[in-house]
């Protein structure tokens, strides 16, 4: 079992360093962290040693148009374990769900972004995870929160219908923004998710990271095929 993971924006984009996130995440019962920030400086092994939290190198590409996403995907794919692309416009969402090399489409419903059955199917075909962003639900109020909730509901209905893979995140920009898995599950249940649904979404980060690490391993040739000594275990 992969355990619960959370994806965070670290210093310099956010106001907490990766190690502070790890310290808090360990208290809260997370097993791992995905760092969305490309410029963040950290020593993943030292953090894992000290706090027992698995730190996954991720990059969240934030681009204006599909053209620039395309360039970034090519440049950053090799650099990181998880490649995330921020959605938020219809053109971006459409482009990203059709990219096999992208792992996660984040914040698809932010801003003017929308999602539909075509995108849900495409995301499943190409193995792109869609993110349920709980950030606005946790931190906004009034009209913006209502819009975010409406977006989450629409996305959830599509994801359930087409069996699209997904991840769940509180999208923190400082360590105060983290919430423990049980809190996220309770919140999810209040806004119409199932407890299992949220658990799956939190665990999916870990599963993705494990899969990508295996794929970038030197002994990996193809799924189920690897170089090495015969192992009869």
């Amino acid at each position, binding site marked *: 079992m992969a355990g619960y993971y959370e994806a965070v924006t670290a210093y310099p984009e956010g106001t907490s360093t990766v190690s502070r996130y790890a310290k808090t995440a360990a208290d809260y019962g997370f097993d791992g962290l995905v760092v969305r920030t490309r410029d963040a400086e950290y020593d993943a092994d030292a953090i894992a040693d000290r706090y027992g939290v698995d730190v996954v190198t991720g990059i969240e590409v934030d681009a204006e148009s599909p053209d620039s996403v395309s360039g970034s995907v090519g440049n950053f794919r090799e650099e990181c374990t998880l490649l995330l692309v921020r959605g938020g416009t219809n053109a971006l969402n459409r482009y990203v769900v059709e990219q096999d090399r992208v792992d996660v489409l984040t914040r698809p419903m932010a801003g003017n972004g929308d999602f539909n059955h075509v995108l849900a199917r495409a995301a499943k075909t190409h193995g792109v995870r869609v993110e349920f962003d709980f950030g606005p639900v946790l931190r906004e109020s009034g009209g913006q929160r209502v819009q975010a909730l409406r977006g989450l509901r629409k996305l959830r209905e599509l994801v359930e219908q087409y069996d699209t893979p997904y991840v769940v995140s509180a999208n923190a920009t400082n360590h105060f923004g983290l919430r423990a898995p049980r809190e996220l599950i309770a919140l999810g249940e*209040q806004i119409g998710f199932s407890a299992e649904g949220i658990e799956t979404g939190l665990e999916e980060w870990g599963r993705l990271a494990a899969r990508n690490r295996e794929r970038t391993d030197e002994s990996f040739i193809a799924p189920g095929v690897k170089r090495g000594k015969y192992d009869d275990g």
Partner: protein
Amino acid sequence: MKHLPKYIRPRWRYLAVAIESTPDAEIDRGTFQREVWYAAGNLLGDPGSADADLTVYDFAFADGIGEAIVRVRRGETDAARAALACVDTINGEPLGLRVQGVSGTVRACEERYLGRRAGDFEQRHVVFADADRPASARGGAVDVSMPTGFVSATELDFE
């Protein structure tokens, strides 16, 4: 008014809540209670908020960390947890918050879950982002004061 006979009194659950904010933050019981009710009202609506009750019983906060006991009606703990998760700022300062555990009595709640987050608070200077800056430290966590506000780090970032 005469108190209710025991068998008809409401049953309560007490949530032990750990709170964390910036070292400068000033939070007292009143402001925390207000934010909790506000969050509950927004997430659960007036009927849900009334059902959950969410009264802050015991509250302590100093130098960036604190603890509280929140009383909730039995059977509403999940709704209360969700509402508490939505408390994100108090007086403009960001707030981290976690439900440590749930008990049936205040005393059990205190004994089992509270008073464990010790660690000495100290002011000192650290080198961060190419400059010497004032910071406050406790138990491995270091909050560096930058011109734009606090940046939260740990000892590991200065090794």
